[in-house]
């Protein structure tokens, strides 16, 4: 059931998918890994859409160099935990949803538990080793992982549906070296919005997801490309070589 305030808040989108769709969003739990460049637009758009429970995890503190792109955080938040800043903004932008903001580093000992009973995972991280952990948990729990990555004016996104699509390791078997990446906020905004849109479609059961398709954005040329990606039968995460580790046990 929706309050009068919720009905008014969601009026323009309930024109698209009705009360039933809105109810689906309200009942949903989404896990967002990272409250930075991608995590900002993803969490803001999922919050205003009325996704009922959002868990957002980050262990960093807001730094001045974050502010060109991480639009959840303001100048006054410098030095503050990103989770604290994120929770305040998200709760303010939509007081009718539940926000869990957890200040922890995601690792192999806690990833599965942190993700818990979430209906989906959003990859808003800045490194591949932790992305591979999310990938493992998504496969084990059979829930989608919406991947995004940005650098400069370039970005990429794809939606991984375990058992159906290639997993992150099928597509990117080896991590690139870690470096301090140049980036503009608009790239994070564009890719993060694509990711939020994927989550909404998945929860609503409408449209076509980026399944088996790597969306590639070139902001310099203002050109979007799509590369078809396939499962790797020998993939060490989802293929026949995949090992049964504790992370792969079902919830």
């Amino acid at each position: 059931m929706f309050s009068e305030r919720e009905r008014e808040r969601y009026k323009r989108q309930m024109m698209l998918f009705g009360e039933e769709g809105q109810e689906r969003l309200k009942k949903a739990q989404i896990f967002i890994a990272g409250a930075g460049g991608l995590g900002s637009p993803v969490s803001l758009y999922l919050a205003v859409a009325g996704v009922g429970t959002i868990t957002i995890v980050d262990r960093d503190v807001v730094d001045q160099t974050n502010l060109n792109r991480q639009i959840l955080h303001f100048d006054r938040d410098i030095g503050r935990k990103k989770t604290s800043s994120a929770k305040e903004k998200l709760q303010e932008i939509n007081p009718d949803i539940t926000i869990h903001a957890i200040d922890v580093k995601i690792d192999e000992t806690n990833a599965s538990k942190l993700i818990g009973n979430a209906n989906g995972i959003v990859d808003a991280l800045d490194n591949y080793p932790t992305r591979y952990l999310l990938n493992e948990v998504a496969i084990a729990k059979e829930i989608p992982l919406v991947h995004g990555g940005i650098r400069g004016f370039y970005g990429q996104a794809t939606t991984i549906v375990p058992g159906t699509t290639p997993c992150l390791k099928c597509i990117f078997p080896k991590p690139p070296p870690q470096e301090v990446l140049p980036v503009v906020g608009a790239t994070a905004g564009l890719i993060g919005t694509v990711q939020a849109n994927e989550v909404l479609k998945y929860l609503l059961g409408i449209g076509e997801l980026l399944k088996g398709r790597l969306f590639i954005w070139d902001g310099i040329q203002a050109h979007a490309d799509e590369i078809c990606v396939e499962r790797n039968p020998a993939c060490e995460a989802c293929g026949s070589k995949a090992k049964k580790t504790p992370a792969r046990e079902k919830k």
Partner: protein
Amino acid sequence: MSVKIRFFARFRELLGSDIMTDAAAGTMFTSLITTVAKKNPEGYAAIFDENGAFHEFVILMKNGKRIEIADAATTPVVDGDEIAVFPPVAGG
């Protein structure tokens, strides 16, 4: 014969986007990319290591199909092929 090479992300920044290249019959995937990448030392270093092998994270595709790095040196390109070379984009 004519082959189209498409670099993405950082590789595109350094080497350009859609490159049409003339290659001799029998040219292999790795040698074609090596020749094109050498036009910019920074672009070459982004794709290849000091031994001239692809960095292990580089993704190679030919006509929409993945080419394993280990097979690239012995995979011939033919007229009309479309090749894609790109890195995983890591930032968030």
